[in-house]
């Protein structure tokens, strides 16, 4: 699938929208309007934007707790995302999930799962479901480098290979699991090597360059769809902000952050679009303005949305 101009512009818009959404979320958090934990996706926008742009509508996406960006890429309305952050009835999970637990199954986004690594076996199960029902779908499972040190990762990768499940494992290696650098937590610092132990083909991809992510994802998804079984991508990225809003950031210095910020994925894509004459400066300015306005409108929407009704407390504990 060759990217046309419309799709390029949409991807650029999504990246900027994520950036603005996360900046606004940080402000709302600091004002005390958002409770709990807040994990921002700033710096990692090219990963999920490029990856999810390469999926077909029937392909399922499941991720960990750093899920706002993924939600945007899956097409969840920014109104409902911010409403969820504010715990409102109009939120994607009716205000019952919060930042870490967003999902919209109508858009094949199966959540935001907040126990590290715990959703990898679920992803194997989603893929198993499609295999069992003979659906031509791929499950895309995103997780951080930290998740590759817990048993669930290993159980899920093993099962996916044994059963030849249509699942694409995507490790977003942002160098740190909370405040612990990969080298201090993982026996191999090149995470993709762990896939070798399960005979799962794999590759490492530059996650600051959306075109690299998109092209690798397109190939990987089609490869999985062809019935060859699972595949693992390790996408190298960096979060510009702390692990969560409560991060003292004692584990890395400003120079390192600055070095990575010089490779801002939005800046790289911006330059690419201009250089390839896919878009002009004015068009990109327009998209940036639209993203800003959309986030503004979403905050207004969320503020004016009702709180969940008290009877919601006891609703949906069971389906029967």
């Amino acid at each position: 699938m060759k990217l046309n101009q419309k799709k390029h512009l949409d991807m650029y818009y999504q990246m900027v929208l994520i950036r603005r959404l996360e900046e606004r979320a940080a402000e709302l958090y600091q004002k005390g309007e958002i409770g709990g934990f807040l994990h921002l996706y700033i710096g990692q926008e090219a990963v999920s934007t490029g990856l999810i742009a390469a999926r077909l509508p029937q392909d399922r996406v499941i991720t960990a707790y750093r899920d706002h960006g993924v939600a945007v890429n899956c097409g969840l309305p920014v109104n409902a995302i911010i409403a969820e952050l504010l715990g409102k009835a109009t939120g994607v999970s009716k205000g019952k999930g919060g930042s870490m637990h967003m999902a919209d199954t109508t858009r094949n986004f199966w959540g935001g799962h907040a126990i590290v690594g715990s959703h990898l076996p679920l992803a194997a199960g989603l893929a198993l479901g499609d295999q069992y029902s003979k659906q031509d779908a791929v499950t895309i499972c995103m997780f951080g480098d930290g998740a590759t040190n817990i048993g669930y990762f290993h159980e899920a990768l093993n099962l996916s290979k044994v059963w030849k499940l249509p699942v694409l494992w995507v490790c977003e290696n942002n160098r740190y699991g909370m405040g612990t650098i990969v080298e201090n937590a993982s026996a191999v610092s090149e995470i993709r090597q762990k896939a070798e132990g399960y005979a799962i083909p794999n590759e490492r991809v530059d996650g600051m360059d959306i075109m690299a992510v998109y092209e690798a994802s397109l190939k990987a998804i089609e490869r999985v769809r062809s019935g060859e079984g699972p595949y693992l991508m390790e996408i190298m990225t960096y979060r510009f902000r702390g692990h969560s809003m409560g991060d003292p950031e004692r584990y890395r210095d400003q120079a390192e952050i600055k070095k990575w910020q010089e490779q801002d994925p939005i800046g790289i894509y911006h330059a690419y679009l201009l250089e390839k004459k896919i878009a002009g400066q004015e068009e990109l300015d327009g998209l940036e303005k639209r993203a800003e306005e959309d986030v503004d409108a979403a905050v207004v929407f969320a503020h004016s949305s009702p709180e969940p009704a008290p009877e919601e407390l006891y609703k949906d504990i069971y389906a029967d």
Partner: protein
Amino acid sequence: MTRLTMREAISQALWEEMERDTSVFILGEEVGVWGGTYAVTKGFYDHFGAGRVKDTPIAEAAIVGAAIGAAMTGLRPVAEIMTINFAFSAMDHIVNEAAKLHYMFGGQFVLPLVIRTVGGGGRQLGATHSQTPDAIFAHFPGLKVVAPGTPEDAKGLLKAAIRSNDPVLFIEHATMYQVRGEVPEGDYSIPIGVSKIQRPGKDVTIVSYSKGLELSLKAAEELSKDGIEAEVVDLRTLRPLDMDPVIESFKRTNRAVIVEEGWKSYGVGAEISSRIYEEAFDYVDAPIKRVAQKEVPLPYNRDLEQMALPQVPDILAAVKEVLNG
């Protein structure tokens, strides 16, 4: 009616549901070629094939996690965890995922999932393979916990569990597979979350479930010889808990003994007795007694193991105490 063993009743429920609905499939350790560690799925692999009777690696988190994921796609997996002791390896998926996803995502999808497992001591398997931790699982809203004590209930409740859109932990007892009982002919199911009076009586209420039911019914027979008529209430489902038959019975007998195989501390008996005190305090004629496992890791030695497990004489003694109270 026909007489079946517990094993046959459970096996029939699975078989009939798999015949009825192609979205039902089984996954677990040794469920296929081996035929199930407790032989419940014997013959299934040959009849339904490897696609629907899936042997898994020894990886409980993967088994339960994959079953959850498959249920999210609309299938009705029946995951077998070889013994409930191994369910601790999948605890995260049972309590942090299965029990919460429907609620946490605002009811967007259902989890029609059954986890069949086997609990209980009495087979000299030592401390790690003999536990009855049912109460732990019953602690979590969002999970349904079923533990039948008769073949009729086992078949009917397992069918209901498979047809349910909620995650159900279905706990069988390791020493009860050969227990025989009358089972209705043809297709039937028994609703989850409904307790049942298994033996009527007027003098004392014995509340129990699973293996404890077997012991309680034996005790009731003994008591009857002494002219004491015990009413035995079988919880059948630990969550959601149906207290109505317990409270109604207690209001008639004013005395209760609760029998469980698990440890007494923080257990099923603690819950049931509290509920009776909360809901029927004015009817209490004697302090409620609990019969449960001694507070030790279950030992291997046969005599020590039997000392630690609740026995019929323990129930008889407790009943006599509440009657004299």
